[in-house]
Structure formats: structure tokens, C-alpha cells
């Protein structure tokens, strides 16, 4: 087992820049599409960086806005104003 963390987001327009940013910042991330939902797995650690999401949007982004599209997650969370991190401490 790869000890994946994961994040699942609603598959709606608001989530697209977040998904793109995750893929860009986490080369090991694997995106799984299912109806209405996107689940992204990543071994041990996954990061969402505010700056990358802002580049995709072309405007400001508050990391707490992910609450609007978040479906589920697995991993210990570390969040500050710039980064949202999921990780297993194994």
C-alpha cells in the first residue's frame, strides 16, 4: 500500500483551478474522476498552495474557500494562509 492521502472535491467549475493547482504542485498526484466528484490520491503528502490557485484563477483566493467544494479527505491537516497540507506521518 502506498499510504495515500486523498482529497475529494465536487466536480464543478469552482473546483477546477484547485484541481489544476494540485496536479501542478504534486507530481505524484493521481486524479480519479467519478460522477459529480473528483478524488485525488497522493502518496503520503499533498499540498494546495494559495499562490498556484491564484495563478489559475487570475485573482485572489482564500484557502478556506475550499470548504465550499470539499467532499472528503484523508490525512493530518496543516493549514495556514498560504498552504493547505495533508500528510501521513509514517
Amino acid at each position, binding site marked *: 500500500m502506498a499510504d495515500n492521502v486523498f482529497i475529494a472535491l465536487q466536480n464543478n467549475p469552482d473546483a477546477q483551478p484547485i484541481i489544476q493547482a494540485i496536479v501542478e504542485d504534486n507530481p505524484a498526484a493521481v486524479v480519479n474522476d*467519478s460522477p459529480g466528484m473528483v478524488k485525488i490520491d497522493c502518496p503520503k503528502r499533498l499540498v494546495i498552495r494559495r499562490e498556484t490557485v491564484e495563478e489559475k484563477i487570475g485573482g485572489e483566493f482564500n484557502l478556506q474557500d475550499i470548504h465550499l467544494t*470539499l467532499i472528503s479527505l484523508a490525512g493530518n491537516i496543516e493549514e495556514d494562509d498560504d498552504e493547505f497540507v495533508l500528510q501521513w506521518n509514517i
Partner: protein
Amino acid sequence: MAAKPRRLNLTQKYQLMTRGLDWETTYQSMDDVFPYDKYEGIKIKDWDKWQDPFRLTMDAYWKYQAEKERKLYAILDGFAQNNSQLNISDARYMNAVKIWMQGVTPLEYAAFRGFAMLGRGFRGAGARVACQFQSIDEMRHYQTQMHAFSHYNKYFNGFRQFARIRDRAWYLSIPKSYFEDAVTAGPFELITAISFSFEYVLTNLLFMPFVSGAAYNGDMATTTFGFSAQSDESRHMTLGLEVIKFMLEQDEGNLPIVQQWLDKWFWRGYRLLGLVGTMMDYMLPKKVMSWRQAWEIYWEESGMALFNDLARYGLRPPKYHEVATKEKYRITHEFWCTIYQFSHATALYTWIPTEEELDWFSAEYGELFDTVYRPRYEYWAELDRKGERFFQKRLPVVCNVCQIPIFHTMPDDPLMNCCLVSEYKGTKHQMCSQGCKDIFDHEPEKYCQAYIPPQQIYQGNCGGATLEAYKEWLHIKDEETGEYYGSEDHIMWEGWKAQSGKPADAPA
């Protein structure tokens, strides 16, 4: 350049709006103000070590929840105005939604009450605030679900008189007893049971594959409230993981207490989720994934990663998780076989899967399905063709702990029924599994008082000691029970399809 007004960062804001608004009481001792958070034996040295990793504060909470509600109700209104009930894959699907409304939605309400208690009960401000948010979330889930179902109630059977059947229907004691068990425990056990064992470890199996399945089956109402609720659930799950780590970091004496709760609540949660697996496998006409596959992804993969992480605290995976994994090939089939035989005593319809569905089961579940369950379905289909649709004449014996009919089989023998007995104060109590028996034996004084509906019914306490008298007391009409094919839902659905020119589905 004009200086931007100074803004607090997330960590500062969280600190000010939780700890900053709290105080040590002086007129009364803290122990008198918070009388319940010590008796379970959990030792907390420093409540300030409690962290919400999302650092959510009340102002941000209201802002995000208002936004979620706006989105949700826009979709629900559009759904109703466009008669979108016509777009679901098949009216059999509605029975999954009925189970949700009858069994799951009342749990949202129970969770609202439980977390309101916790939002008052813990002496740490961080924990209280997180539980208060969750309490309001759960009330929102209950309300949005009822709102969504009210549209289906205009057309389909099984949605009316929700409160009465919640109280009286024998089979709904399965979910109900789960929560009643949790809220009658102490505050730390309650939060471990619900936030960690149920929400962190197990609800992904309900909210991810099942709700995604609802989307695939054209039910945008359920999908939308499901995912909207789940966006709160991520916060609840995080609370669950934090509370476990917090207890284990505070005092090493907490470990055995927490481990025992995890063993108990994993098993109770797993037993309850057998019902969800059955909804996924049997009630979604268009399939997203099987229960077996969902179990592999969300337990064998994600659950194990979680327990590998928690191993540093000395915690081991919950007892009997290997048994749950062995049962992944059979639990939904055993469940459906049972509901099939008893649906004349429920506000649900059941049916034999179509040929195509039976083939899907063979592919997903392999030899065991073909040798054990498929022949049963073929036998019952044959009886049905002869006009002898099979129903049990009596209500089943149910497990004294999980309250599920005793239909589960031995871990290593899917053909041998498992029924274990504990004797307590001269009375025999039956359990479905070693997992449930351990729970009973650990707290016999609690479980010997469990309200077991079939026993109450046959004692004559529910309108009379016969199934007919009981159904009358429940106000269930024969038309809303039993076999799907030929039912009012089925006839209405065929009428709609005929109008729209699409062929209705034929029975197996």
C-alpha cells in the same frame, strides 16, 4: 503606496475567537460547571493543546454555510420546478432514497442533539466551539434532506409519516440504536464514536461512492444535499482525528480506553454500513462501484494508512477488521436476501435483480456469488413466476447489539449462520457476531436494557401480537410495502416512461 489595513492571520484569529472568548469560572468550580468530562477516565492535562487544523472561526463559519445553502437551495428549487424526478434512472432507485430518509436523516437530528450536548459539555473552548459548529451542521443536514425528500414525497410511496415510522418501524432500530448507544455514553466516547469511528473511518463509504452513484442515477437532489453535507463532514472527520490524537497525547493512560472504544465503534459502524453497501449494490440501477471495491479503497487502503499513522501512539487497527474484510464478498448479498424476505413489513419495495445485474454481481463477487446467492435469486424468481412471491411469515430474531436480523454467517463459512449467546441475570441474549458479543459482554447492564422491536411486537406492546396488528399500529398500508414489480411506484413509473416514449424496464 497606502498601507493595507492590518489583517489578522488565520492562527491569530482562531486564537482570539476561541481561547480569547473563554474564561475560568470563579463563582462555581470548573468541575461543577463541566461535570461530565472526567468520569470516563480520560485524563486531560492541558485543554489549550486542542487544535482545529482548519482554524475555523464563527464569522467564517456563517459566511461559508450561507454560501453552501444558497447553492443547495438553488439546485433543489430547479430540481422541483423541472420535474427532475423524471430523470432518475429507474424507480427502484427511489428505495435507496427512502432508506436514507427513514434511516439516515433521523441520525442527522440525533447528531445535532449529541453535539449540542458536547458543545456544552467539554471544558476546553476549542473543543466546545468545534462541537457547536457541528451541532448546527447536523441540524442543517436534517433540514436540507427533509426539504429534498418533500419533493419525492409528492410522487413516491415510503416518504410519508417519517416521524412515526422513525419511532415505530422495527427495522429502523438498526440506525436508531447506533446513535442512542452513542449519546447515552460519556462525552469522550460519544465524540470518538461519531466523529472518529463513524465519520472519519466509515462515512466515506456512504458519502463518496453512494452519492456519486446518486449523481450517476440522475438524482441531483440527493447528490447536492449529499455533497453539501459532506463538505461539513470533512470538518467533522478532522475533528474526529484531532480528538483521538489529543486524548492520546494528553496522557498515556488514555490509550486502553480509546482502543476499546475504537474496537467497539468500528464494529458497530461497520455493521450499520452493511445497509449502505446494500443500497449501493442493489438499489443503484446504474453502478459506480461495488461494495467490495469501495471497502478495498476506503478501508483496506485509506483505513490502513490512517492506522499506520496512528501506530506511533500505540494504537492498533480495530479488532475484527479482518472479519469485516472477509465479509466483503457476502455482506450485501446476505442483507438483500433478508430485506427481500421481509419487505412486506417495511415501507420499502424489494425485487430480484435483473439478469444483467446478476451478471455484474458475478463479475464483482466471483464464485461465491454464483454458488450461493445467484441460486437463491433464481429460486425466488421461479416462485414469483408461479405467483408465490416469497415472504417470511414472522419477524426475525435480531442481534441484541446492532439490532440487525441474525443473518450473518461465520467468518470462515458463508454457509453457516452465526448466532452467539450471552447469558446475563438469567436471560439469554443473542448476538450476530463475536464483535457484537464482545460489546455486550463489556457492558451487559447497558445492553440488557436494549429495546428490541420484534420482542416488543410479539409481547403485544405494539398494537397487538400479530404482524397485521403491528402494521396497522405503524400505519403502513400494504400498497407501500413488499414487491417492487407491480407496485404503485412501478406502475406510476411505467406510465411516465410510456408518456415520454422510452421503454420501461421489464422484470427479471
